[in-house]
């Protein structure tokens, strides 16, 4: 065996010491180490993660670099991080064939910032390099077109399918495109059902890593309809601190549990107020309630978003804060939520890949 080949083996061995914290296994046995090169003292490896939004990407890169540099004969280590988002669905006949993960964002009631979270989540994931769609299914108050600064409407493509509007690298379809402007629509079961089917099957999403669905608030027919039509990866529950106290968020959790749709975790929105003059953190409704509920339910806590006018102002101007003010504390909070969500999706998807799903032979 040549010296070079021997070193390549040493490099792989060294990388076995790096654990993926979410999957509890080393990155070599997970098959993440893709390409190992060595030439003239320089090592180059490619590590393929489960999402470009991996929360510990930089940390893993650094660990890998150090592990390789510790080897005799290596002077330089280049570690490239790539990602391949896995699909959580084994169902390829689904209405959404090219979509790897479908993530409804839900809340027990309206006004808690569900749309704000959906939009920022979608944009943050897209910014990380993932292919993202955003479906505004809130028939009662579609607000994604405003939040995302949309002016054009989607056009119809071949075979009657609608082509989503792309904004900030996110493919968007909104119920707002279809609603008559004059009067409020009263949605009845069959109509809702038809709309959802149209929404799910009648849109040319193409290949997507993540499709975020901004659900209407509450736990009624439309949520049930949705869960019955596509295999959902898992739901993100948005809650304010006072809703946690009032048991509103728990209703949404219970609904998804009943449907065997996993809950990926809870986001606490409007968590605390930071005075714009003195920077003091002032807890209006108390903070951390959602974290406690998460813990008691054994659900991941995805993060907390501060109550801040910076968020509302940018939303009103049609550019989510993660894009409009990326260095702000609010943007960073959303980024963390996006990373944690992507990590939870990865865990789900990999669980399906590592152990098998439901086998039906009939």
């Amino acid at each position, binding site marked *: 065996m040549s010296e070079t080949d021997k070193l390549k083996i040493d490099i792989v061995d060294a990388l076995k010491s790096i654990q993926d914290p979410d999957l509890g296994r080393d990155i070599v046995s997970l098959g993440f180490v893709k390409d190992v090169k060595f030439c003239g003292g320089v090592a180059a490896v490619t590590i393929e993660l489960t999402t470009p939004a991996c929360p510990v990407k930089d940390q893993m890169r650094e660990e890998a670099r150090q592990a390789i540099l510790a080897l005799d004969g290596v002077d330089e280590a280049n570690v490239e991080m790539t990602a391949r988002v896995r699909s959580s669905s084994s169902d390829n006949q689904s209405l959404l064939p090219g979509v790897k993960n479908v993530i409804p964002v839900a809340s027990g009631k309206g006004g808690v910032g569900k749309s704000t979270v959906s939009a920022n989540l979608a944009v943050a994931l897209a910014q990380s390099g993932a292919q993202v769609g955003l479906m505004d299914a809130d028939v009662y108050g579609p607000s994604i077109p405003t939040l995302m600064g949309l002016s054009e409407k989607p056009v119809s493509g071949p075979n009657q399918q609608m082509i989503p509007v792309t904004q900030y690298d996110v493919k968007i379809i909104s119920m707002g495109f279809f609603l008559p402007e004059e009067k409020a629509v009263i949605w009845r079961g069959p109509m809702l059902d038809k709309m959802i089917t149209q929404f799910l099957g009648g849109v040319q999403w193409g290949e997507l890593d993540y499709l975020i669905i901004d659900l209407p608030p509450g736990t009624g027919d439309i949520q049930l309809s949705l*869960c019955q039509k596509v295999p959902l990866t898992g739901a993100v529950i948005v809650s304010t601190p006072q809703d946690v106290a009032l048991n509103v968020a728990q209703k949404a959790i219970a609904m998804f549990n009943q449907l065997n749709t996993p809950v990926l975790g809870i986001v606490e929105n409007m968590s605390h107020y930071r005075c714009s003059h003195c920077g003091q953190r002032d807890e209006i409704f108390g903070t951390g309630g959602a974290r406690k509920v998460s813990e008691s339910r054994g659900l991941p806590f995805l993060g907390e978003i501060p109550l801040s006018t910076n968020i509302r102002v940018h939303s009103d101007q049609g550019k989510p804060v993660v894009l409009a003010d990326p260095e702000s504390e609010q943007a960073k909070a959303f980024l963390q939520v996006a990373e944690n969500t992507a990590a939870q999706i990865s865990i789900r998807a990999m669980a399906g890949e590592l152990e098998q799903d439901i086998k039906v032979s009939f």
Partner: protein
Amino acid sequence: MDEQTRSGDDSPVIPREITRAGDHDIRILWKSGHESLYPARYLRLKCPCAVCVDEWTGREILRPQAVTEDVAPSSLELVGRYGLRVRWTDGHSDGIYTFKLLRELCPCCQES
């Protein structure tokens, strides 16, 4: 987070395998390892659809006399991640049996 670490009554129940048992019956092997065998007609009579059960009272509308002795499933289909749709030889296919319901209906777990 795996299924096992979820707490409370609402933790999901998931099958590992769904197969035929004999000519008519359905067998489910659960992730937990428990095995359930459902006689075809028993399951047909438990159809949870709105035609067979009163949505509000939960009262069974379907009369046992209306279901033939030899009714059997003709096909099965997973619905989302939470249930099973059964097509019966009598033409009925409206009911979605959630895994939760199926687990509750397991004959060997019924108190007689």
